[in-house]
Structures are given as structure tokens and as C-alpha cells.
């Protein structure tokens, strides 16, 4: 059975902002959330049993306690000093958590990820989307990330810091290199020890990055990969719990939202830019995927 998008809660910043105040942030770049100094539970952000469609990349560190979560339909057992890296557009569900949990959550958007890829000359980074990484950190690793999380928060909360953007960027790069090193993602990107299915899944995400503004047919993507549409959906279901058409629809909607919100494009323009035959067709597509019309979405965003 293919899950539909209505079963997911869009995990956007707008959703979180009223629930918990960020400990520190650099607008449209990085956001830090934790409950180290308070008793706020992570379930304030994520309710147990609900599924969230993650819009930014997350680095989640469990400082204390235990949790059981589902990321892209894979079950993970987390204990203290567990670290999970969840790239944007994954799904996340908290199944169970112990009474007292302490955590740190580092959210970074695509801007931050692209910038660090650019700074460090990393290519094909987007193939990471749809996969995830989890491990229990060593003491040295845990101390390192905790220290840097706190230093970053402290720096971002400083006033009269002219080059705060460079500061944020440098810490984002440090955390990125840290993540790549502790999960050994480097060797992973090169495709070592990845099954054929997983490889196909990554290639699909790769193609989606490339063609989402042009093509919305599962047929097209399956042809590019040299497999049948049915097999493509089987693969995406295995790795993300969503079928291929849902992936495509959600991806296109994300692009549309970006265009409307960040670039302030008109609905007509968005419809043309995303290669829809007409505005009304785009409107119906948008409403089918998100549950609201583009017009209503824009009004709610502009408020």
C-alpha cells in the first residue's frame, strides 16, 4: 500500500517556531534546538506516533535517555550518545522514548549544505538525500560535537558580531566534516558496499534533483534508470516508505514552495517554470499533493 502525502506532517520551520524557541540560529541557514538547560521534551517538536516529512537536514544527538525512531521506514534504537544524520526530505517518526531524554538538534537547510559543499569542493552531495546515518559516538566524538554545538550557539547569540555569517558558515563546515568523518560517508558516496537497489534509489534522487522542474512522470525516471516504473516504486518504498510518484510530487511541490516563498514568484510564473501545461493544472496538482491550493498557500506565507 502506497502511503499518501496527507499522512505526513510537513516538518517546516514555521511548524516548529511556535512550539520551541531555537537556542540559536542564523536565519535561512542553521537552527539549534536542545533541552540541555530546560525540561522541554523532544516530543514538543515531534509527537509520538506521528510521521513527519523533514524539510531541512537534521543532526540529532541523544545526550541522555533512550528512544526508538523510524527514519525512512527503518527502525532505529537510540541510546545516550547516539547520533543520527537525517538528510532533507526524509520521513521521521518517534515510536517510543524514555521518560527523561536530553537531546541536541542541529537543523540546517539546503543553503547551508550547498555552501559547505561549495567551500569544500564536495560534489554529488545530494545523493545523500533519502539515506540516513546512525551510530553511537565514542566519548571523544561526543565531547567534540557537544563542545562545538555549544560554542556555535554562544557565538550566534553574540551581539555586535559583524562577520557572524562567516562564523556560522565555518561552524557549519566543521560539523559537516565531523559528520562525514564519524559516519565515513566519504567511502559511501563512492558507492562502496552499496547494494544495487540502494544505488538505484540514490540515482533516482539524483535524477529528481536534475529533472524535477521538467518531468513528473514515473515512466521517465524509470526509463532513465533502465527499470520498470513498478520496480522503481518498489525500491523507493523499501528505502523511504513512499512510492515513486509520491516522491516526485513532493519534490515538485517543494520546488514550487521555494519559488513562491523565497523568490516571490507569481503562481503563473511557477506553473511555467515547473513546466505545467496550464495554471489550473498546476493548481490541481498542488492541491492534490498538499491539501491546499497554491493561492491559499501563498496567502498564508505572506501573512
Amino acid at each position: 500500500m502506497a502511503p499518501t502525502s496527507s499522512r505526513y506532517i510537513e516538518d517546516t520551520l514555521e511548524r516548529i517556531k511556535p512550539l520551541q524557541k531555537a537556542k540559536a540560529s542564523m536565519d535561512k541557514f542553521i537552527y539549534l534546538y536542545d533541552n540541555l538547560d530546560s525540561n522541554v521534551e523532544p516530543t514538543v517538536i515531534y509527537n509520538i506516533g506521528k510521521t513527519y516529512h523533514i524539510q531541512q537536514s537534521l543532526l540529532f544527538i541523544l545526550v541522555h535517555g533512550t528512544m526508538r525512531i523510524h527514519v525512512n521506514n527503518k527502525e532505529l534504537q537510540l541510546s545516550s550518545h547516539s547520533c543520527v544524520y537525517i538528510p532533507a526530505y526524509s520521513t521521521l517518526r518517534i515510536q517510543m522514548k524514555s521518560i527523561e531524554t536530553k537531546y541536541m538538534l542541529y537543523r540546517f537547510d539546503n543553503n547551508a549544505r550547498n555552501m559547505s559543499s561549495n567551500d569544500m569542493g564536495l560534489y554529488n552531495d545530494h545523493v545523500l538525500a533519502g539515506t540516513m546515518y546512525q551510530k553511537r559516538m565514542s566519548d571523544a566524538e561526543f565531547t567534540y560535537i557537544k563542545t562545538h554545538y555549544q560554542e556555535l550557539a554562544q557565538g550566534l547569540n553574540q551581539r555586535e558580531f559583524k562577520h557572524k555569517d562567516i562564523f556560522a558558515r565555518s561552524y557549519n563546515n566543521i560539523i559537516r566534516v565531523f559528520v562525514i568523518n564519524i559516519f565515513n560517508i566519504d567511502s559511501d558516496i563512492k558507492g562502496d558496499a552499496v547494494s544495487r537497489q540502494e544505488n538505484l534509489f540514490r540515482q533516482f534522487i539524483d535524477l529528481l534533483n536534475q529533472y524535477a522542474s521538467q518531468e513528473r512522470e514515473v515512466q521517465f525516471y524509470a526509463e532513465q534508470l533502465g527499470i520498470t516504473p513498478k520496480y522503481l516504486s518498489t525500491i523507493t518504498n523499501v528505502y523511504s516508505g513512499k512510492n515513486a510518484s509520491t516522491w516526485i510530487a513532493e519534490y515538485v511541490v517543494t520546488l514550487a514552495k521555494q519559488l513562491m516563498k523565497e523568490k516571490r514568484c507569481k503562481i503563473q510564473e511557477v506553473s511555467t517554470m515547473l513546466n505545467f501545461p496550464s495554471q489550473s493544472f498546476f493548481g490541481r496538482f498542488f492541491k492534490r499533493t498538499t491539501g491546499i491550493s497554491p493561492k491559499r498557500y501563498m496567502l498564508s506565507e505572506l501573512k
Partner: protein
Amino acid sequence: MQTESFNQITSNEECVKYEDKFILADNLNQADEPKIMNNTTVYNEQYRCSVIVVQGALNMVINGISLRVKANEYLTVMPYTSIEIKSSRCKFICIKIEAYIIHDIFNNINIGINALDGCYTFNHYRLTPRQVETLTHDYLHMKEDLLNPLFKNMRIDIIKARLCTYISHKYTFIDKLPQIPHYQENESSQLFISFMDLLSKNYKKERSVQFYSQQLGVQPKNLSTVTVKYTGKTASRVIDEYVTLHIKLVLYNNRYNIKEVSDMFNFASQSFFGRYFKRVAGCSPRKYVSTNSKKLSKKS
């Protein structure tokens, strides 16, 4: 002129480095009276050096100009400078980085500073103890991560990121802060500044002393008198070094082939370019590219 590595300056400080591109040295942990080896002369060709004196004072001569760097003072020394330590009893931090790497980083982060500006000179600032503490903290992080076993991969990237943190603090601190002046305002210092300014605008086209002296309205001989005073070198040597530094930057970035670089710098032929580069830099352009240039990409 003799080029020495920086770790020869000091007697027993701790020095760590990454492929001679990043060199970090300090004597913060030295228990007894810290002292830098006196009367040593170092010739710095292609590094930007940042020196922070944490305690005590450092007397030195840079390109013939004597200065005293006191506690909580910050000194940036640009490429093509000879540095002579006269006397010292101080705790210090020194970060020495290849100018091209800094140039790259400045470009990436869009800070609006050209790392190759101000060759042959130095900047001197007075900071607050609090600011020195922050920069020291950033420095120690950098040093720690240079040796950190956590970073098996991408060590250069972690150091660059660390350096960016340091840069974000440094340029916030020195923003609108007046420099401690060392150049007396007179005719010859004015001429030197105008010459360097003219050179920075024309180095891609003109390499003759004739051109520059004509533009400045002075005799070639007079121009050299001034450059000798401020750099210890004749005007034609200054021009050659300045041009070569910029050629090296282009070669380091490795985006153009040698023929293109030769055209870019207005050389009559590639062979002429090759000979010119070899005369000034001491090796052929091709050899320079193969040993120094950036790898084009880390991942395919």
C-alpha cells in the same frame, strides 16, 4: 636572500603544520621565561603571517622598518618581507598560511578583501585582552584539529573551516580599528604607495620599470631608490615578484592551461613566459602546477 622555515625562528616552541601550507607555532605552554631566538632573519616570500603577542614584547625589523609589538597587539605580515627578530621576551602565537589559500578562502566567504594586497608591508593593531583570548581560543582549536585523530578524511577542510572562524573574529575585531602607524607620511612613502597601487592595477599588462616610472612622473632610478628603502629591492625586482605571485595564484587555482596563463599576463610567447617564470620563481610553470596546484576535484 635566504629563505628559512618559520620553525627555525624560535628556540623551543611548539610548531605544527600541514604540508608547509599551514604552519602554526606558539610558545604558550613554555614554562620558563619564553624567548624567541634573537637576531634571526627570515625571508617570507608567499605566506601571510599573523602574529599575536599575548605577553611581553617583540622587537623586530620588517623590510627595514623597526617596530615593537607589545602584549595584546596583532601583526599581519604580507608576502615578500624580510623579518628580523631583534630581541624578545614574549608569549606569542603565529599562524602562517600560504597566501593563495587565504586568497581562496577570502573569495569563498566573500569578505571583500584581496589577500594579495599589501605585499611588502604589514598591518599592526592593538586589540583588547578579551579579543586576544577569543583569537587564542580559535587558534588552539585549529592546532588541536590539525592533529585530531577524529579527522581521518578532509583534514585540510577542517583546518580551513577553523581558519574561517578565526577570520570571522579577527575581521570583526579590526573593523574600523585604526592601525598603529609605522610609515612616516612623506614624499617617498607616498611614491611607494602610489607605485604599489599602480602595480596592482597594471601587473597583467606591464612589466617594465619604464612604464611605471613614466606613469608616476619620476626617473626609473628614483623609483628604485624608493623601493629599496621600503622593500630592500629594486623596482624591477618588485615588479617581477609581484607578477610572479599573481601567476602562481592562477597556476595554483589550476583552471587555465599554461598557454592561457601566458596570454592572460600579456607575454609575447609561451616560451618567453616559461623563461620569465623560471628566472623569478626558480622552477618552470609546469613543475609549479604539478607540485603546488589544487586538485581539480575531490570526488568525481
